[in-house]
């Protein structure tokens, strides 16, 4: 029953959002069937589109894992976007330095730098302040996220990482650190088998860590009931710091993978919003690492499909953000289901009692 509900609820929330989106689209004079049709064909219509969908979903999946991990530990890491950009910045910095290293070692170093940067960004300030003075992690991670993006922007707008010239962007990473793309099938998409393998490893690692290790058990215990965990001898403060650091580690890894696999340099803008969409990905997956794959692909499909929809049927791609926001809202309102069931039962039992009394 519970397992069924955990699948039904996100599906129902998504369906309600899609219906509301259809009403909105229809009210503005478009045909919702053809609009959604162009969205689906844009996401899955050809091998190239499917490749784009996977490319778009990989950062969402990897960040989503970290957010799911923090949720399971009872913490809300709302600042994954900044951890992602700090990870990306660190990876790019390593990527265009140390060019004499062999390619595989250089790649590994870039990834490690990204993970470390993300972990430090989430673990030190939000983690330690949460653990020792109780500063709310929602606020601290959000503030640190803005600081991260401003810092990265500073680095390439006149700061030490700006490429020579007037355009605010960093130098390209060394060519032997750039992930090779598929040469067949997905060749139109910027998709690399290495990115896919890293994402798969990340999913398995998150699942194994959460469900098969003492660390994961302790994290989940802290998440379920921090006070009880404390009396059971778990060092709650340590695990709060670890949970946020691990969460940032995944976000930083996502930033590194995106830089090595797709962008190859820091560009001005920093408006990917992966960190925010990944919150939806984790929520929709009910914080289950394996579910994150499915919900990550769903939102990757929305992103690429939305772009196609804008071209094919002239409906702005921002419709997908409307859907996203609605889905979060409805998933957030999950407690309405037991409330409705309870109300129904009370009414039925009241009806059953009336003739007797």
């Amino acid at each position: 029953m519970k397992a069924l509900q955990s699948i039904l609820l996100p599906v129902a929330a998504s369906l309600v959002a899609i219906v509301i989106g259809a009403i909105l689209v229809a009210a503005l004079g478009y045909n919702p069937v053809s609009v959604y049709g162009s969205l689906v064909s844009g996401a899955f219509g050809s091998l190239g589109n499917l490749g784009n969908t996977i490319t778009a979903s990989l950062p969402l999946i990897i960040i989503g894992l970290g957010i799911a991990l923090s949720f399971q530990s009872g913490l809300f890491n709302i600042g994954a976007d900044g951890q992602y950009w700090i990870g990306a910045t660190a990876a790019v910095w390593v990527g265009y330095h140390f060019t004499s290293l062999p390619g595989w070692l250089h790649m590994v170093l870039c990834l490690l730098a990204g993970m470390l940067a993300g972990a430090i960004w989430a673990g030190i300030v939000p983690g330690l302040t949460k653990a020792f003075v109780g500063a709310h992690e929602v606020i601290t991670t959000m503030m640190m996220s803005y600081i991260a993006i401003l810092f990265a922007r500073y680095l390439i707008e006149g700061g030490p990482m700006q490429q020579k010239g007037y355009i605010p962007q960093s130098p390209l990473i060394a060519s032997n650190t750039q992930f090779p793309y598929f040469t067949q099938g997905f060749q139109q998409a910027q998709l690399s088998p290495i990115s896919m393998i890293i994402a798969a490893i990340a999913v398995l690692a998150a699942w194994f860590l959460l469900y098969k290790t003492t660390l994961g058990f302790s994290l989940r215990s802290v998440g379920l009931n921090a006070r009880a965990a404390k009396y059971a001898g778990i060092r709650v403060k340590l695990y709060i710091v670890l949970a946020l650091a691990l969460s940032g580690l995944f976000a930083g890894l996502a930033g590194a993978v995106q830089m090595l696999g797709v962008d190859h340099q820091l560009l001005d803008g920093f408006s990917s919003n992966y960190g925010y969409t990944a919150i939806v990905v984790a929520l929709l997956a009910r914080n289950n690492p394996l579910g994150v794959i499915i919900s990550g692909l769903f939102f990757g499909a929305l992103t690429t499909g939305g772009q196609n929809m804008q071209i094919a049927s002239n409906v702005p791609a921002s419709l997908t953000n409307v859907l996203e926001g609605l889905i979060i809202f409805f998933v957030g309102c999950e407690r309405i289901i037991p409330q409705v069931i309870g109300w129904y039962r009370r009414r039925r039992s009241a009806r059953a009692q009336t003739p007797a009394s």
Partner: protein
Amino acid sequence: MVFSNPEIWALTLSMAIPLALPAVGGTFSERTGVVNIAMEGIMLIGAFFGVAFSYWTGNAWVGLLAAIVCGALTALALAWGAIHVSADQTVLGMGINIFAAGLTTFLLNTLFGYSGTPVNTPKLPTLSIPGLDHIPYIGIVFQNQSVLVYIGIVLIFLSHWFLFSTRLGLRMRSVGENPLAADTLGIPVWRLRYLGVVLSGIFSAIGGAYLSIGILNGFTSNMTSGRGYIALAAMIFGKWTPLGSFGAALIFGFSTALGIVLQGHGVSSNLLQMIPYALTILALTGLIGRSTPPAADGIPYEPRR
């Protein structure tokens, strides 16, 4: 040199208002015990519908009214989820923020096309305070500011008086500190929480409308650019009081104004813009005057029957 330029103080005030209004709104919501991180989204809603109705009716005041109504309605959705459904308030707020950013961009492009809102959209008038504007130096601060600056300042002081000196204000605060105790005294916990959240929607929407029909006369996608989150910071830095929020907003507004004035002086505006966020973290950790939220902030309350 920079500080003797009165322009910077005028700019500080004009940059502080769109932070102070949503911060005061957030204060109302959180004082009654509902965490509100949706100020950013509600500001966007207010900014967009303010412009849309200002253009359609040809009257910026109608635009402002429409912004308030739409902001209140959005806040009502948050209130319903937070109060009736006992949903996670941070999740709801995130949902509203993403929804609002999507909806306003979507409507901007479908209703007005890709070239932006019409250039002949009416905006709210600017006002100079007669008498004050003749004082040398200070005068320029009150010269040709949007009428919403003055309305905003009055609203902020009224809010502080309302929250801390009226019976209703005391009741609202009691609901956020100890709802059970308030309930046993016969105070309608849910109704006051609805009031707090809806007020936060109204204030945030005015803050958004200030940007779109107060300073400018048009809407661009994501034009609030994170001000709702800085407002959240101002609210915390101001220790969940309207006047404190205003003070914090003035400090943050000053750092923004400084960034604008110092552009081209070799000081990175990116680094200056970090100040509000860094100050907020310091305030939360107690390094500069500990900020403590209301005791029941974010905790849903199930009324006892």
